[in-house]
């Protein structure tokens, strides 16, 4: 009985320590942004702004004006063009957009349309001015349905907001052979 009194605290301590070690979050989990998810039609509110999913469409080819010349892009997958409404901005902010497909894979906005009109890489959003942003992704076709749009402040985003916007159910109603991106 006396031996048990000595051994029991050690066993309990080891169990507690093991439980803590097993449940310790990894580095990425500790420092990742804090996600706020909004259902379709609702606005997601973050620390610096609120965003609502507005529209989406797909295209096989994109064209846009850059430095006075027309740029054409085509893809072996599909282009997904997403638009979102920005409101309630508290501080001028630049955004980074990503699409999380049904598989869980994350796709950043394609660099192939950098400097296209109104895409988030060219835009800065300011307080008091309601605005609309656009993000373009190049995806495998089966990653569109069931996906989520993710928006966060551009640059280091440790423990800041990440807004997850749910699109309407199903696939985009509009598919274009060629879509021209206008300002």
């Amino acid at each position, binding site marked *: 009985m006396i031996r048990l009194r000595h051994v029991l605290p050690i066993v309990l301590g080891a169990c507690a320590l093991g439980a803590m070690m097993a449940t310790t979050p990894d580095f990425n989990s500790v420092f990742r942004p804090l996600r706020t998810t909004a259902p379709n039609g609702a606005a997601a509110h973050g620390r610096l702004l609120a965003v609502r999913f507005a529209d989406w469409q797909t295209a096989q080819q994109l064209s846009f004006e850059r430095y006075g010349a027309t740029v054409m892009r085509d893809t072996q997958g599909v282009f997904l063009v997403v638009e979102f409404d920005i409101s309630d*901005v*508290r*501080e*001028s902010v630049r955004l980074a957009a990503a699409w999380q497909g049904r598989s869980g894979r994350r796709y950043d906005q394609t660099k192939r349309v950098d400097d296209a009109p109104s895409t988030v890489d*060219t835009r*800065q959003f*300011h*307080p*008091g*001015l309601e605005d609309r942003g656009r993000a373009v992704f190049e995806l495998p076709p089966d990653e569109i349905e069931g996906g989520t749009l993710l928006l966060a402040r551009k640059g280091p985003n440790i423990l800041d907001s990440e807004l997850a916007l749910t699109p309407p159910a199903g696939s985009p109603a509009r598919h274009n052979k060629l879509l021209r991106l206008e300002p």
Partner: protein
Amino acid sequence: MRQLAWLATATLLFCTLVAFNGWPALRDLASNREWRAQQVQSGAGSLKGLHITVTEQAAAIAEPRPERAAVHVRLQIRVTPEARDAWKDCRVSLRDPHGRVWMPLASANTDGAIKMLSSDGRNFGPCSLYRRDEQAGEETIQADQLFLMPSDGLQGLRLYVSGVGTRPDALSFAIEPAIRRLR
């Protein structure tokens, strides 16, 4: 009594550990915030050897977009090598009484707007303390900033100027831009 001593020691060690780990985070937070703003009434002020004067301020509202105003601010900065080392860089922002923060526009399109709004038709570029000449002693430089704001929010604005080396200290100037309506 002996248990109390152990408890006190453990508490002291815990607090030391928290302070040791939290100190870099606190420093990091302080280097990005401006919670000790020095209110400047006369349009000119000094902080850590850098003397800054607001020499021009103007707002333009264009008829096609009457809800938006472009606000131009020109700074004249007297820089010494010691001040440059103390400040390290220069950040300019506008704040309203509700705590909203506007950062300067950073795109190629701002050049024409600044030249149109400045009194001499020139654009000296954003605030930068970059040393152009290793031998440079005391010099006076100018900087032009352009902000995009709601046209009904031009009252009670303050211009904050700070550097990595000064924050959380900053200079805060009252701004009342003259409004020009453009057709």
